[in-house]
């Protein structure tokens, strides 16, 4: 009955934004009991407020790759915004009403026809959570973390991405307070796309750098 991280079914029920209190549906395993205990002890001792965790869950739920795609497309459509985004990601995010809540430096890496960026955190799981939300399990896995720095092209190939030999692949290993997001290249043939159509091309994986935006997907 432990919370086994090998569960392979997804809880794909979308993001609920109701404000019901924290509820527990199944019998908790040991680690959930520990989590409940620590939280309740800290609240009882007055170290954290009774609703702080709930409020932070709402903040976490408000961040998703949709935000990143909006930043990317705005940068594609407005060169001045792109300059601001590349120069100071935190300020550019604030322009769009996105607060970087954790004292990290949101840093955007621009792909060019000569350069493809891919992001990893070998030591833990640093990821631009205030923009993209929570990272996927594979990003935190030992396989991704151990291999991406050493053989990025092989890892990208497992995601179906082949970068031509004459395009440089640059791996960014996050070790400090910078939090990286890729600004992918706008695909050819999208000159007449609407903003929404462009945003639908910019999936989460294109902003990590393991895939590139493709017109004929989904």
């Amino acid at each position, binding site marked *: 009955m432990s919370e086994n991280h090998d569960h392979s079914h997804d809880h794909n029920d979308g993001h609920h934004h109701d404000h019901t209190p924290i509820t527990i549906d199944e019998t908790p395993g040991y680690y959930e009991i520990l989590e409940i205990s620590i939280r309740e002890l800290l609240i009882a001792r007055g170290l954290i407020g009774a609703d702080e965790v709930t409020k932070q869950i709402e903040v976490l739920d408000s961040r998703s790759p949709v935000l990143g795609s909006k930043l990317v497309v705005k940068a594609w459509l407005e060169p001045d915004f792109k300059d601001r985004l590349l120069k100071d990601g935190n300020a550019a995010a604030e322009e769009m009403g996105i607060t970087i809540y954790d004292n990290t430096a949101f840093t955007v890496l621009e792909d060019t026809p000569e350069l493809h960026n891919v992001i990893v955190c070998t030591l833990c799981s640093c990821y631009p959570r205030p923009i993209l939300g929570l990272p996927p399990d594979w990003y935190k896995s030992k396989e991704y973390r151990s291999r991406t720095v050493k053989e990025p*092209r092989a890892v990208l190939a497992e995601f179906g991405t082949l970068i031509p030999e004459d395009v440089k692949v*640059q*791996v960014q290993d996050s070790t400090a307070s910078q939090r990286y997001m890729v600004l992918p290249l706008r695909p050819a043939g999208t000159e007449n796309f609407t903003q929404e159509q462009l945003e639908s091309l910019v999936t989460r994986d294109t902003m990590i750098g393991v895939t590139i935006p493709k017109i004929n997907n989904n």
Partner: protein
Amino acid sequence: MITVEHNPALFKEGEQVKVSEKFPIGHYRVPTYLRGKTVTIAKNLGRHINPEEEAFGKNAGNELWYYQVIIAQKDLWKEYLGSKDDTLEIEVFENWLEPIK
């Protein structure tokens, strides 16, 4: 206006430096794969509390300069199989960097 820096950054963008070979215990943020390598300073990232000390509860006080450094993958790995121009960038604090003599 003259600014007087009492704690100037040791290294400049474009400068080549060596990543130290040393063995902290308890906590570190420089992966073993980078130790002893020659890297180039790509960007000065400013100052921050040393994460090695932050990990033991230091939340305020003196800060260290840190840098984004870059290295060619073919110089980093003995058998790098990708393109010869591929690179890796990583952030390193000043206490881990030495000038090249």
